[in-house]
């Protein structure tokens, strides 16, 4: 009995030692090898999933189609008016640039990546480029529609793990574009809550914020580049005892996760 218990303890200690040494020295290589093997399966399952989910989505969205169409038409008209306004501002801006002899707008150096899979526990995704392609930890990930997706968290040889902006306890600064006065700048701290949920905290109650307003990234803390789309305000909570309001966000990246993404290399 004693001998059996000793053998059992020895096995446990051995397993723990092997796990510790793997975590310390070989984890990245092991993960990279497994991801390379799994890549074709990930791609096929993902494609099939996309097809089936879009098929079911068509059915579920059918009844809301009329109201949504009306809403989109109204939004379209508003956007058209804004485009005219922006065109005028653009011309004015170009003239000012010429006059001040400023260089062209700093452009980002982008690298195209594919989203491969999403982890079960936590808001993390795997992308198709790694250390060999110049990926380093901390680089921001965006979509083609200028939507902020996340930041590179871990780099393997051919793959990288991206921490989504909605990942639990991920904090970054944002700016709210209010409909009331587009020149007014409202800054806040966005905090990821996990499962694609984001909340904005520390915005005084006096600031008028409405549902449906757009939130963009700010670079006060130099965590993400400025001006990338983060999400739309879903819910505003005000309490009598709290000096700040809590705002719930609907992140935009949810729609872009299955698509091609970009990593900003020169941030």
């Amino acid at each position, binding site marked *: 009995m004693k001998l059996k218990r000793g053998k059992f303890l020895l096995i446990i200690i051995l397993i723990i030692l092997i796990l510790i040494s*793997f975590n310390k020295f070989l984890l990245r290589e092991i993960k990279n090898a*497994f991801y390379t093997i799994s890549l074709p399966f990930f791609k096929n399952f*993902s494609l099939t999933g996309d097809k089936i989910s879009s098929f079911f989505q068509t059915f579920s969205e059918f009844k809301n189609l009329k109201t949504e169409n009306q809403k989109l038409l109204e939004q379209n008209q508003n956007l058209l008016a804004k485009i005219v306004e922006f065109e005028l501002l653009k011309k004015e801006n170009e003239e000012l640039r010429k006059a001040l002899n400023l260089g062209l707008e700093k452009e980002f150096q982008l690298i195209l990546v594919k989203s491969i899979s999403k982890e*079960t526990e936590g808001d993390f995704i795997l992308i198709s480029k790694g250390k060999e392609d110049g990926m380093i930890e901390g680089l921001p990930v965006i979509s083609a529609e200028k939507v902020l997706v996340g930041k590179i968290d871990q780099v393997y040889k051919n793959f990288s793990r991206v921490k989504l902006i909605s990942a639990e306890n991920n904090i970054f600064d944002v700016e709210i574009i209010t409909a009331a006065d587009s020149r007014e700048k409202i800054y806040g701290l966005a905090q990821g809550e996990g499962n*694609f*949920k984001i909340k904005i905290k520390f915005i005084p109650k006096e600031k008028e914020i409405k549902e449906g307003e757009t939130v963009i990234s700010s670079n006060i803390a130099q965590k993400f580049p400025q001006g990338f789309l983060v999400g739309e305000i879903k819910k505003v909570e005000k309490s009598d005892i709290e000096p700040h309001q809590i705002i719930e966000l609907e992140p935009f990246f949810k729609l872009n996760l299955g698509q091609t993404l970009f990593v900003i290399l020169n941030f």
Partner: protein
Amino acid sequence: MNEFLILIPIFYFLIIFQQSFLVKFSIFGVIPNLVLILVFLLNFLVKTDREKNLRMILSFIGGLLLDIHSGLLLGSWALNFLIIAILIDKFYQFFEKSNFLWFPILFCFCLYFSKIFLNFISLKYSFNVNLFSFFIELLYSLFLFFIILFALRITNIYKSKKSPI
């Protein structure tokens, strides 16, 4: 023994399936953990002493494969599943003759335990679990759980084994 080794590639494909296919069908951003469901079923349905060690080893391997495909430390899910397998083995006798309605309740405990365990492993040291997400994951998992159970009963895979269903 050989018939159980087939579970290793099944674990592997379930992980790929849940991380690439099931992601598209997430409810409020929640995806059920199919490996946890299978580990739970494996330890509850297969009840012979001969396979006791094999069940535990398979649970551990399932966890290891999940660790490789997640950002947690290698061994987090593996230890989690191993503890779940040991706990089910220890407390099985209390539920052996009980109604199979105990199944969802026990699964709920296993899911809650795995959340807490991962909180501690990832150095959050918290007993707090987002109740809304937990509830959604539980319902989603139970839905899949009963589908798998139904499939097992139809195919009579575990008919000859001593199990509560």
